[in-house]
């Protein structure tokens, strides 16, 4: 790759980032009043001609006739709709590189929190779709996958500012075709497990170890407390520690699953070892065992209408969210895909058509319910006084296919503003043309341009990992396989390797 080209790419990237950062005020005004909007509170109905007052990043008042305090910035949202920011309970954005540590059956040592990438432009795209928080998951390669983290989409902030403060971390499990690698071949010997029987035993074996490990530490700590002498602490096991946290209720289990029987399997294993499954992810056959999921107190985070991309998705129905909701399960609709996340409000609306949820129930699928599932509902998920000012403003009702996000706020700061985005385009285009001209002038007479999307790290193709960043599942309306550097959908994007 020629240096000039590298420079150009670097400048493009810097431009893209700086532009969007520039679109965000460095310091949010301490007081903002969003007024004259239809306010969808989610928790206490709809307020026509309503206002939301924001102080110090928190919601200070919600209602009609709120006066703007002195010095407040006023956002006039006449004819617009205001609702809490969308929470995506299954995302793989903002991850540097691959989302799967696919080499081992129990990859609990791997932690997504270690590889957060604040420069991933998918953060900006999803912000522009009204998403303010997301559950960033490890892929579905392994029965027991890696550790997960909840973030806020604070585009322009460093990685350290992305994590959702105080949100409990999680761990990804995966059942069915992906961990058993049904739909693809990976070079090299087959890896245990290759059956659903094996998936169950992989999880049981891991928790059997974790239970013993926990007991060793409990015994040791008891002995320390009793001032016993000549004690040796057990050897730390970084693979088992996250599982001990699961047993102690300090870490949530988010399990990828499809078929009804494997859902019940995991509930049995969880009961055996005394932990909870916080959410079943995808859970496309959840509607068949909704009572059992509800009785276990687990949440279900599903797709709106994806189906038939593999055998375990052949009984998927768009009524899934509605049936589970009616049977008492806390249900959310997630994306598993940076693009799908940009219209989760629309995906939620489908549950009205398929299964007859009310408008409020539908909106909860992408706001309050995922907040409950992630244990952050005291902070976000509805427009209530005291909650974080994570807010999205639409030009139409968010359950309409015509609704376009106008502004997205996190902690009372405007992180996405459609008007500002559009206004900046002319300058950006001008700058781009100038760069292209510069590149043309500096181009040597001979020799082809090398790979435009080449790696700046200079890695050779054969060093590239097979599991470059891919989400777990198929992408709707996806490209032909060769359009994008990723395998077709049925290769679980998270690699499931």
């Amino acid at each position, binding site marked *: 790759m020629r240096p000039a080209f590298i420079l150009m790419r670097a400048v493009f990237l810097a431009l893209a980032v700086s532009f969007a950062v520039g679109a965000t005020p460095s310091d949010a005004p301490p007081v903002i009043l969003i007024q004259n909007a239809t306010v969808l509170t989610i928790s206490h109905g709809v307020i026509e001609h309503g206002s939301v007052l924001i102080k110090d990043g928190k919601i200070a008042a919600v209602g009609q006739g709120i006066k703007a305090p002195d010095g407040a910035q006023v956002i006039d949202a006449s004819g617009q709709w205001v609702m809490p920011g969308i929470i995506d309970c299954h995302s793989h954005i903002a991850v540097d590189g691959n989302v799967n540590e696919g080499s081992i059956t129990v990859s609990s040592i791997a932690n997504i929190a270690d590889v957060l990438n604040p420069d991933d432009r998918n953060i900006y795209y999803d912000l522009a779709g009204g998403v303010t928080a997301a559950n960033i998951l490890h892929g579905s390669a392994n029965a027991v996958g890696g550790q997960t983290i909840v973030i806020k989409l604070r585009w322009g902030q460093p990685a350290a500012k992305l994590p959702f403060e105080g949100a409990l971390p999680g761990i990804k499990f995966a059942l069915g075709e992906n961990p058993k690698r049904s739909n693809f071949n990976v070079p090299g010997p087959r890896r245990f497990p290759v059956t659903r029987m094996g998936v169950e035993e992989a999880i049981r074996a891991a928790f059997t170890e974790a239970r013993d490990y926990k007991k060793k530490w409990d015994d040791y700590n008891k002995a320390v407390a009793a001032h016993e002498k000549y004690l040796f602490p057990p050897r730390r096991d970084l693979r088992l520690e996250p599982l001990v946290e699961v047993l102690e209720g300090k870490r949530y289990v988010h399990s990828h699953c499809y078929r009804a029987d494997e859902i019940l399997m995991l509930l049995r294993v969880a009961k055996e070892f005394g932990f909870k499954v916080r959410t079943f992810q995808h859970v496309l056959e959840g509607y068949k065992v909704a*009572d059992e999921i509800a*009785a276990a107190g687990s949440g279900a985070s599903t797709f709106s209408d994806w189906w038939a991309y593999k*055998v375990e*998705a052949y009984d998927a129905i768009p009524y899934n969210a509605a*049936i589970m909701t009616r049977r008492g399960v806390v249900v959310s609709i997630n994306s598993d895909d940076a693009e799908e996340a940009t219209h989760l409000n629309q995906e939620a609306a489908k549950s009205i058509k398929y299964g007859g949820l009310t408008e409020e129930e539908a909106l909860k699928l992408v706001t309050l319910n995922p907040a409950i599932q992630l244990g952050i509902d005291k902070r976000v998920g509805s427009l209530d006084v005291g909650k974080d000012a994570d807010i999205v403003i639409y030009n139409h009702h968010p359950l309409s296919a*015509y609704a376009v996000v106008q502004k997205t706020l996190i902690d009372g700061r405007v992180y996405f503003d459609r008007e500002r985005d559009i206004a900046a385009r002319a300058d950006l285009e001008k700058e781009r043309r100038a760069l292209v001209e510069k590149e043309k002038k500096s181009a040597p007479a001979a020799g082809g341009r090398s790979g435009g999307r080449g790696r700046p790290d200079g890695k050779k193709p054969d060093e590239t990992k*097979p599991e470059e960043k891919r989400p777990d599942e198929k992408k709707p309306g*996806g490209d032909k396989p060769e359009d994008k550097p990723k395998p077709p*959908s049925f290769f679980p994007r998270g690699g499931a390797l």
Partner: protein
Amino acid sequence: MNSPVLKRRSSNSKLVRLLVAVLCFIFAPLSHAQSPAIAITHAKIFTLAGPPIEDGTLVIREGKIAAVGTQVEIPAGAQVIDAKGLQVYPGLFDAVTQMGLSEISAVSATVDSSETGAFNPDVVAAAAVHPASEHIPVTRAAGISEVISTPSSGGFDSAGENGVVGGQASAVHLAGWTIDEMLIRKSVAMVVNWPQMQTRSFDFNTFSIRERPFAEVKQEYERRVNELGDWLDRARHYAQAAGQNALSQYDRDTKFEAMIPVFRGDLPLLVFANRAREIRGAVEFFDKQKLRIVIAGGNEAYAVKDLLRSKKIPVILRAMLRLPPEEDEPYDRSMTQPAELAKAGVKFAIASFDNSFARRLSQNAAAAVAYGLPYDDALKAITLYPAQIFGLDKELGTLEPGKLANVIVTTGDPLELTTDVKYLFIHGRLTSLENKHHQLYEKYANRPKAAE
């Protein structure tokens, strides 16, 4: 043992009844002569051939639209459907799908969408469209009454390789016991997968992302384009020989034979290309070849809109709901493109390019409206425009007398997410909206409460 043959012999009248039943079964869907007329009354009718008609009546007879308007006489004996408060539109038309060719995309045994080898003009989608596919009733419940079943059209079912000339696309009704009953036109386009210049691609042999220098990719691109040119030359010579009735002098070639309608100008090429440079390459190449093309995909059609307009080349656009094709494009690039193309005078339709997501067709059209496309254009992009692009607008696309009665009756705007399709007519027949998804819903919504 009592043989059924003996039984039939023993009762001539039974045999006759059986024969009549069988014959009715076979011919009923093909002949509408005996079916009563259907009148949809008191509806707001969007004919797409004029302004909406308030409190209108639409009469269907013998599979076709017999009359539409306010002063329409309801034929004696007609089945009347009171559609007060409902709206009537042409059925939706999904112009690129793998309908019937792919059931579960991850399971190759259920996938018949892409033949191996580079040149397969002789394969025809209709030969493998599976009328019992569960995708068909699921898709039509979303108001889609007809699709183009398109071989070698990518999606998730391909093994990563698509031939260059992929075969013939077939226009089918989403109803019928057999492909013969489903068929609108066996061959509406010849699929061409235009070679791509892709520096990064997924390599299935090593299961890794493969990166190659641009120069190498460009060289391969040019080689493949040249191969296509050479092959087309041979096919053209064959067609010329056929035109002069001189084929008896040569060995017959089924592949070249299949290309004859293309060279005659009867069959357009449906050329899959997404990047601007590839669209430009394809347009210039086929312009020299003097072959009629339709671009499919067209992710960056906005960048070559003037060329497309000046050459009068229509585009079948992929789903709007997608991220921008390049990182330095605006975030809403894919959504604003239809409005931009419409403004520039480029003819386009919108299609799902999929099976599972075919029912998102109208959602995508709505996204185009949300980002500036006039509503009328969006609706036509999934009804009339695909019919025009594939030369089926005499039969489909609007509600006008004489056209095939592919009609939907809805509770409201068919582009909205919460609108229900109340009635669906395909080829004039009231067609079931029941499907696998609804059946599973009924079954499990009624599951008795699980024992604690």
